[in-house]
């Protein structure tokens, strides 16, 4: 690529227009989740939710490196990944409100939102539950002889489940095309990383399974993009899985019942100063005026999605038993 052209790429990898789209998705994710909080406070939401506010850079950096026919296995804190993967905001909001028009006909909710048709194999209510599944998806790709890859997301907490170890080992011995992307947001509910690990970084564990392990700044869209892009290439070329750890921070509580007694306000404040959205906006030279426009646009999209969802029908009780067996 000629130097002049390369200079126009943000971080050397992203075209400006694409980068701005991703910034808009990050802002939209935050708007979705702030709206979710608000609706919860107003008693409009039946269940719980897990907010990724402060972690938006990982979704923005990871998904765009992949192809439409690749697979996503998401976590319970996965609204951002779902949106970046191409999720329709209306159907997502409808699912969040338990409506028939939602992605899962209101049967799954925030924690199980999925769109099998777009190879988005769902968010996950069991910590590390998606890791063994990704082994099966990887095997399936290998047996079908396609060059698809799997993006498997999980947190620091999941890295201490037995399923993590079985899955990374199996993926490695069989050279499966899987990107294991750990969103290390410092806390497994209330359990702090340093109390739960005797090692410095989750990625150190990659060595135990004979795969590359890298740790990146999880608030840096470009760093994540590059790491996932490398891992995807490695996987697509038939060289097997990679473990990526993206270090970030969960600004909000674990879920809606969290009183956050396990950390200090100063700690949270310190991380809020490292806001991944503002950081990416600054990298793109987006000024205040332009940023406010992006925010206003996101809020308007959210307003419309809420309108759509609220106007959507509730599932008919007569259909209660549908979808259990094929």
């Amino acid at each position: 690529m000629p130097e002049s052209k390369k200079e126009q790429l943000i971080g050397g990898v992203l075209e400006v227009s694409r980068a701005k789209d991703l910034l808009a998705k990050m802002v939209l994710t935050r708007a979705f989740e702030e709206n979710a909080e608000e609706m919860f406070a107003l008693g409009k939401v039946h269940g719980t939710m897990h907010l990724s506010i402060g972690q938006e850079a990982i979704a923005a950096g990871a998904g765009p490196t992949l192809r439409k026919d690749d697979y996503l296995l998401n976590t319970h804190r996965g609204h951002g990944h779902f949106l970046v993967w191409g999720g329709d905001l209306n159907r997502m909001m409808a699912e969040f409100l338990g409506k028939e028009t939602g992605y899962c006909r209101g049967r799954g909710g925030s924690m199980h939102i999925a769109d099998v048709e777009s190879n988005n194999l769902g968010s996950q209510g069991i910590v590390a539950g998606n890791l063994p599944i990704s082994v099966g998806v990887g095997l399936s790709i290998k047996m079908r002889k396609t060059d698809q890859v799997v993006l498997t997301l999980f947190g620091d907490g999941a890295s201490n489940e037995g399923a993590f170890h079985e899955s990374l080992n199996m993926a490695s011995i069989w050279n499966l095309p899987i990107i294991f992307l750990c969103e290390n947001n410092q806390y497994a509910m209330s359990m702090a990383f340093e109390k739960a690990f005797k090692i410095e970084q989750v990625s150190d564990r990659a060595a135990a399974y004979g795969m590359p392990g890298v740790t990146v700044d999880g608030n840096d869209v470009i760093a994540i993009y590059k790491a996932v892009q490398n891992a995807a290439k490695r996987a697509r070329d038939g060289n097997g899985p990679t473990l990526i750890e993206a270090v970030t921070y969960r600004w909000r509580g674990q879920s809606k019942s969290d009183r956050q007694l396990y950390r200090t306000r100063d700690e949270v404040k310190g991380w809020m100063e490292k806001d991944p959205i503002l950081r990416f906006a600054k990298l793109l030279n987006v000024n205040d005026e332009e940023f406010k426009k992006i925010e206003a646009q996101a809020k308007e999209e959210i307003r419309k999605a809420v309108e759509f969802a609220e106007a959507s029908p509730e599932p008919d009780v007569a259909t209660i038993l549908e979808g259990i067996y094929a």
Partner: protein
Amino acid sequence: MREISYMEALREAIRQAMEKDERVFVIGEDIGIYGGAFGVTAGLLDQFGPQRIIDTPISEAGIAGACVGAAVTGMRPIGEIQFSDFVVLSMEQIVMQGAKMRFMFGGKAELPFVMRLASGSGTGAAAQHSESLENWFVHVPGLKVVMPSSPYDAKGLLLSAIEEKNPVMFFEHKLLYKTKGDVPEEMYTIPLGQSNVVREGSHLTIVAMSVMVMRAQQAAETLAKEGIEVEIIDPRTLNPLDTAPIIKSIIKTGKALIVHEAVKTGGFGGEISAAIMESEAFAYLDAPVRRLAGLDMPIPYNRNLEYHSVPQVENIIEEARKLVKGAY
């Protein structure tokens, strides 16, 4: 018709399904060169190679996850759990993922996988290698549960299970692997949810599963010499359960004995009993429904203790006599 063993019938079903459908593969511990702990997959590695007969590390969660993930992306995996007891290490993947995925996703995913499990006592393998855990899975909507009792059923039900679009838990009994019976060479299926009247009789209905079908048949021979004609019904699949032949039989005999190896408390016998009580057969009962099942205990190692921990032929004979002679 040719006679082959239960194990050979299972192997033939797997082989024919794999020859017919490239999406079918087998994954489990020691299923390749070792041929499976009980020999079911012997020789399949030579025919299909390591890409489709996949030996795994000792990772039961991984095996189950591999089945779930491959099934939801278009393959048709057959997982093997070497001893059904080890399924405890796969429970999250089977119960939380495989069974629920379709429902959680609004009916928009298919999970066509079979989990084969070598089950039951009688081999001196003690408490962690001898359990009968089928009823755990009956309690999980989204799964189907199959328990073949003969070579013929083993082949036909396994071929059906492989064609299923839903996860199937397929419980094989270790003591049945070497039993022989008539099995057609060609492919055939037995629908899931079709009880089998194994023997006809007019005095007593015995509902038995898996190895207990064989024991009930032996008991029935003895009882017949005493003039007691037993009707034996094998549900073959616990979920879906075909209750119609059971109800019809009890309307005829007025008496029901349910026999299974799994521990009595919380066992499938309770479910069959309840199904009888809720049906029109209730009015025809002239004795209480009786259950003969494993004692509420882990399987002991000692040969004699192990023998007495689950129903044997003489227990069935004795219980049948009591029922027919009005002891209850």
